[in-house]
């Protein structure tokens, strides 16, 4: 019986060798594929155990990881959470990251190629790998003011502030906001509860209204009409338009009245300047019909409307004019109604472009990427998207917008600073039972613009204030933010 037993022994060794061979195949040859497979959660979990970089702005830390005494090793913290939540987003172990936590994840977790050298040195020195840091363009003063302005009045809305020459985003708020802290909790119950509450909140708190919600721009859209008109060379600020309180939309029986049913000034006709100042719908309906859809569409596109691939690096929803099938629709679009929908950021970009001599700058949030030791690795260079209008048109428009601003009572104005602005009051909803969205876009100082802002307050900020207007509700907020950006006390 010994011969078969010896053969069995050899067979057993062959079996073990076969197993070892197969294990080598799995753990060496295929190891890389398995390790990097997107369905392999191990890599992700390892990431949570690494010290994640911080997000800061103007020397203020907005999100950082501090050592914790549990399995996940680091606790993500958000000082001033609600003020910055639309930017930082949250970093949840259950629901994943959002906002910059998602968009700048590669830098924050240290896997970004720009941190490669640092990673290698971590490997050699045996130091625990940690992520890089992100410094924002945000001016904490502007951000806080903008947030307080909306929050203290209980408004649902958004404010965006840009530096016209560079596209740096100085402030970007969305209210009501939320605290990302509980979503980064290591206690699952707390996360789940916060998640349910935040998702059920009314009005919604999770979307960043500045970039992911689009609103009818109302009269602020008239800036585009003016830009198209002046750029055509056929019009000047003194070109006359109808001053009628109401006109019938072309090809329909629908009347299009002015705000409050007023005539546009005292004369038979109103100049373009006067029409913009008084925001006369009839004049702009006439103008747009004369310009035709193509001129309006091209001018809007030059300001960035219709582009859907903008990232700051948060994804920005594409603003749109909607379909313009006939002149009646064009006339409605020209006063920022019909299917026109802009994000507050897009509206701020229009103001910024006018302030910047017609040049549209790509807006951005990340000023600088730093390595673990806060040494600068990369600084963002401003990037021009292209000219929307030539500089002559821009200065004419600035002058017209100054005229607008100055036509308001001197309430809430900043002493010694000339603002150029346009207000908007946009109907939305099926009937007139909902107060309009109100807008304020502008920049200052008019002669040397340092900041451009867009303010949006949803439904006039008060469900009962059916008479809300941009000038009354949104403008004071915009002026406060401008003054904060210029370092002045309001």
């Amino acid at each position: 019986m010994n011969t078969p037993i010896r053969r069995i022994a050899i067979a057993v060794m062959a079996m073990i060798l076969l197993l070892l061979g197969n294990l080598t195949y799995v753990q060496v040859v295929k190891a890389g594929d398995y390790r990097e497979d997107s369905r392999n959660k191990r890599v992700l979990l390892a990431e949570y155990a690494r010290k994640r970089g911080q997000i800061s702005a103007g020397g203020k830390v907005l999100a950082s990881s501090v050592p914790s005494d549990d399995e996940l090793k680091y606790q993500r913290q958000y000082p001033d959470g609600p003020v910055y939540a639309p930017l930082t987003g949250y970093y949840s172990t259950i629901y994943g990251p959002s906002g910059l936590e998602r968009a700048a994840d590669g830098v924050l977790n240290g896997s970004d190629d720009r941190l490669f050298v640092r990673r290698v040195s971590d490997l050699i020195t045996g130091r625990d790998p940690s992520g890089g840091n992100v410094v924002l363009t945000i001016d904490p003063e502007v951000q806080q003011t903008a947030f307080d302005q909306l929050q203290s009045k209980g408004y649902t809305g958004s404010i965006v502030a840009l530096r016209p020459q560079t596209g740096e985003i100085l402030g970007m708020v969305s209210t009501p906001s939320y605290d990302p802290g509980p979503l980064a909790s290591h206690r699952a119950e707390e996360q789940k509860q916060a998640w349910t509450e935040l998702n059920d909140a009314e009005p919604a708190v999770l979307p960043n209204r500045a970039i992911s919600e689009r609103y009818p721009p109302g009269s602020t859209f008239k800036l585009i009409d003016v830009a198209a008109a002046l750029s055509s060379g056929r019009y000047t600020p003194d070109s006359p338009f109808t001053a009628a309180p109401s006109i019938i939309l072309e090809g329909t029986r629908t009347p299009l009245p002015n705000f409050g049913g007023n005539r546009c000034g005292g004369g038979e006709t109103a100049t373009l300047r006067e029409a913009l100042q008084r925001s006369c719908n009839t004049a702009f309906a006439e103008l747009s019909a004369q310009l035709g859809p193509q001129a309006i569409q091209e001018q809007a596109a030059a300001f960035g409307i219709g582009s859907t691939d903008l990232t700051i690096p948060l994804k920005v929803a594409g603003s749109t004019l909607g379909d313009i099938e006939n002149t009646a629709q064009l006339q409605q679009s020209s006063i920022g109604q019909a299917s026109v929908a802009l994000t507050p950021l897009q509206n701020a970009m229009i103001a910024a472009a006018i302030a910047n001599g017609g040049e549209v700058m790509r807006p951005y949030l990340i000023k600088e990427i730093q390595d673990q030791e806060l040494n600068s690795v990369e600084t963002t260079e401003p990037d021009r998207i292209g000219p929307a209008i030539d500089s002559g048109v821009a200065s004419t428009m600035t002058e017209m917008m100054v005229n607008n601003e100055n036509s308001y009572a001197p309430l809430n104005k900043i002493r010694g600073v000339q603002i150029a602005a346009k207000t908007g009051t946009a109907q939305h909803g099926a009937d007139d039972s909902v107060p309009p969205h109100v807008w304020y876009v502008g920049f200052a100082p008019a002669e040397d613009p340092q900041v451009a802002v867009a303010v949006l307050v949803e439904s006039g900020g008060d469900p009962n204030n059916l008479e809300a207007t941009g000038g009354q509700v949104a403008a004071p907020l915009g002026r406060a933010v401008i003054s904060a950006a210029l370092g002045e006390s309001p």
Partner: protein
Amino acid sequence: MAAVDDRPSAAPAAPAPLPTGRGIELVLLAFAAVLVTGALALVEANQEQQLTQALLWVGLAYLALFTVAHFAVRTFAPYADPLILPSVALLNGLGLVMIHRLDLAELAQAAAVGDPPPTELISRQVAWTAIGLALFVAVLWLVRDHRKLSRYAFTAGLVGIVLLALPGLLPSSISEVNGAKLWIRIGPVGIQPGEFAKILLIIFFAAFLVQKRELFTTAGRRFLGMEFPRPRDLGPLLLAWGLSIGVLVIERDLGSSLLFFGIVLVMLYVATERVSWLVIGLSIFVGGALIAYQLFGHVRVRVQVWLDPFADFNGTGFQIGQALFGLGTGGVGGTGLGAGRPDLVPFAYSDFMLSSLGEELGLIGLSAILIVYLVMITRGLRSALAVRDSFGKLLAAGLAFAIALQIFTVIGGATKLIPLTGLTLPFLSYGGSSLVANYALVALLLRISNAARAPLNRRPAAPLPPIAEAGTELVERPK
């Protein structure tokens, strides 16, 4: 032979005592204890538990437990193979460390999700280890001579078949866990009688084959250069085949079925020395497997998952897919004990203990574990070669091959070499029945190895008196 001194007048030299190897065994056990304690310390360190002196006590308790086993061997089987028990101790210890490590992961997971903490498996497995070692000592104590087992062959066979068949006949509420009807569950305690049936049936087959050896070696027809048995002698093999198919169909346990049939086949081959048995056996196995594939959905699913586990990753392929991810992430060196995420694999503590070990110990660690198994198995086969009686040879070969086939199907299944079968890794995986039964198995192997290595006549030969003083006496012929 050395004890027989036939020189008439020389002063009788005290015969040198045969080395028992017990000293080596104790040293190796202490080494295993050091390795296991070290492994535990690593787990605790990487899981950020407090490193306390308690670790040392756990290590010493473990060593004490196996020292008891060692002294049982020293007393009841002093010449037993010295490598088998330390191998078992090392595997069992590593298994306990890994189960504890997975407990920690489960606790952390439960805490993170907010569930109540799950029951820890480790305390149960420690209890099963103690029971296993008690059975180990009992078997060594009760079975002083393995040949006596052949007297109870038919009893063992009958009990074995009953144990094997019992879960299949019992209502599913008692016997079914995760789709396989292998259990007898009474309250919280469940046993898998199949694990014990395996040993009893090996005893039965060894005795049966020795008794009926002639029957299987009767010349049949020659074909392809091989002597084939007469069809009428195929009966017992067909019976075993039918039994294993029955296990497959009724109890839905691919692994036990394969294991059982493989062992019978190899024992037949060892007993008859005829390759033809293997050929016949493998052909009807393949035939059976093909029929099973056609007839049974669960077999088909297993095969499809084996061919491409990622085709249905979130369904049937999830387990094997996760196991492969774990093994791949571990790579050559592993993540380090306690530093990986083996808990992502369902049943990481039992069926997929291998991927847990592979993720954290890497290819290097798994190779070491495989070699420890190989040492154990070859030592068993070596005892089979060295023992003098046919029954002992067959029994040792059967028992050793049972371990070999089991680790092959489990590891092959978890690494996608062969379809997944759902057996446990002897001594490593969580599971009381498997552990306790395997301790009995090892005790039998040690008993046989003791018989193989012990001197023929342990008493030194009586010194021969000088011829002049010798009276007439009856001299017994040396046996």
